[in-house]
């Protein structure tokens, strides 16, 4: 599952990184504050044949292109019945909501060097789509009438092999592409066969600008000791105690934030090799094998590096989620991406 297993760092380097990240105040290798993101380049509306598109390039050279395509599709029979039920006047006001289906949104992630059925692309696509579908608003917007709906294909192309965990990159690029997505304006009414305005300038945005509603974004938050960091780089992930992917959306009514999905991500630090104390290395006959093992176990990663064991303390999870909602980082990102879209 881990994106890479050959971390080019020695146990001594890992131990150094871990100590500097878990000290207070934490010192990150590139001098960022815990809440700082790396610089990125973003542009939207780059693919003329897609309904919406975006490209984001991170400073470490990883780059993603997302194209959103929409197609008309005939709905299955069950929805026809539902609306017939609604026209009796029972649920008429409810017409516009509760009609969408999760399957109408399809996300595919293509990572170079990995097969389509590898765990990583599947995991990434599942994580992004559950965040997008969480509030049920996107899928309801794909409803046209009782017989037809839009099917939305979100195709993600990572242009470089993933150096760090590519989740924030994917999530931000998808966010930007969906902000940029427009669907042709509907001319027909009711349950007629859908007919659309052929003027692209009249197309309606999938996420209208006038209301504050945005697609959610997914942040990668890493915990080392008692500290939490946003947007961890490859070296930082190599010493992470735990990594969380948290998806946040902005509520339409107020400008407050809401967490729509949390997932733990397997940190690559669990695959690193542990260090051996100096007086226990081979050839030093001061201790027998059993004694050496006991001593290494008791050391608990204090003197030399040892891959982290166990999970994330519950108190730290509560603190991380509280900070994500309150420290303004998410609002900054959302506002910045809206500006990119123009």
């Amino acid at each position, binding site marked *: *599952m881990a994106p890479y*297993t050959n971390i080019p760092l020695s146990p001594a380097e890992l131990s150094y990184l871990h100590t500097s990240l878990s000290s207070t105040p934490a010192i990150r290798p590139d001098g960022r504050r815990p809440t700082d993101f790396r610089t990125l380049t973003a542009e939207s509306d780059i693919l003329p044949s897609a309904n919406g598109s975006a490209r984001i390039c991170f400073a470490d050279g990883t780059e993603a292109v997302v194209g959103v395509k929409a197609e008309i599709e005939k709905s299955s029979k*069950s*929805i026809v*019945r*539902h609306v017939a*039920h609604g026209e009796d006047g029972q649920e008429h006001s409810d017409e516009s909501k509760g*009609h*969408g*289906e*999760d399957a109408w949104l399809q996300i595919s992630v293509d990572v170079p060097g990995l097969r389509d*059925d590898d*765990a990583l692309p*599947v*995991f990434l*696509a*599942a994580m992004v789509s*559950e*965040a997008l579908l*969480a*509030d*049920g608003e996107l899928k309801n917007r794909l409803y046209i009438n009782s017989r037809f709906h839009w099917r939305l294909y979100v195709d993600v192309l990572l242009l470089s092999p993933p150096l760090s965990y590519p989740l924030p990159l994917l999530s931000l690029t998808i966010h930007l592409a969906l902000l940029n997505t427009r669907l042709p304006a509907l001319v027909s009414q009711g349950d007629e066969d859908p007919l659309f305005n052929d003027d692209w300038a009249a197309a309606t945005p999938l996420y209208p600008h006038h209301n504050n509603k945005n697609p959610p974004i997914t942040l990668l938050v890493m915990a080392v000791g008692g500290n939490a960091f946003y947007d961890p780089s490859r070296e930082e992930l190599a010493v992470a105690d735990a990594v*969380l992917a948290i998806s946040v959306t902005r509520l339409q009514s107020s400008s407050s934030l*809401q*967490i*729509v*999905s*949390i*997932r*733990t*991500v*397997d940190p690559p630090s*669990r*695959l*690193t*090799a*542990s260090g051996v104390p100096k007086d226990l290395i081979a050839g030093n006959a001061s201790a027998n094998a059993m004694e050496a093992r006991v001593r290494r176990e008791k050391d608990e990663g204090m003197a030399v590096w*040892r*891959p982290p*064991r*166990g*999970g*994330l*303390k*519950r108190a730290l*999870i*509560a603190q991380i*989620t*509280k900070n994500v909602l309150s420290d303004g980082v998410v609002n900054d990102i959302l506002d910045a991406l809206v500006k990119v879209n123009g």
Partner: protein
Amino acid sequence: MRSGRSVGLRTAHVRQLKLTSTVLKTGLTPSASGSAYFELDPGPSSSPPSASTIPSRSSLKLTCTVHGPKPLPRSAPFSPQLILSTNVKYAPFAARQRRGFIRDAREKDLSAHLESALRGVIIADRWPKSGVDVVVTVLEAEEDGWWADEFDLGQSTRRTNFGEWGMMTVLAGCITAASAALVEAGIDCVDLVSGGVAGLVRSKSGTSVVLDPCPSEHEDLVAGCVVGHLASRDELVEIWSRGDNEDQAITLVDHAVDAAIAARGVLASVVKETTALRFGVASTDSEDTAMT
């Protein structure tokens, strides 16, 4: 506890109820180094009897086998750690809709979740150059909704979206069963890990949190959360929370932990029995203190 009661219940009460409805057995597959069978019995339904003959709830049955630790093939590169690979597969007949023999995206996603949960508990650096396979076969899966709803047979409001909430219960079961099987295989772990689920149910009177939700019984399940909980360290190796949780993300996690602690009781007693049978020693009470 399968009926998904509100959380007004005290934990002690929950545990007692849970014990009666969960079946966990180890050592059912002699060819594997460790194995476990897990079953959630639906128990008597709490909803009013309906005219339909379609059962209103589904149960969960799964088996887990652990193969290894075994040496990696010669062609594999050196690994300083135990390489863990997990494989969750629904039997074709597990749910109402048939599953193919090739794993689909949902099954792969479950495997990834299970792997990240187990990798946190296994002390992997004690087995360099070796691998272990954890294989879970779901024999009977929790349905994602009451399937009569698809045909408008139920008198409740119709839904077309089931939201795949059944997967969450399956994952929690996988985690608990895998933990028991790992212990039987003799693989060192930092603690027993148990899975728990909590869900948020929306009704006309407001929202309420239920432990161990049964998707077919609740009209509108809007959010869910699975955790893999290490009780003696009070840590979480797995969190999977999704849905419109109305700012109750942490509340959901806390309640899922309550459900996991209830499952832990069953797990600990089974592990104790297994150990006693295997080594012929009388079980001591030390594990009881460790587990609370």
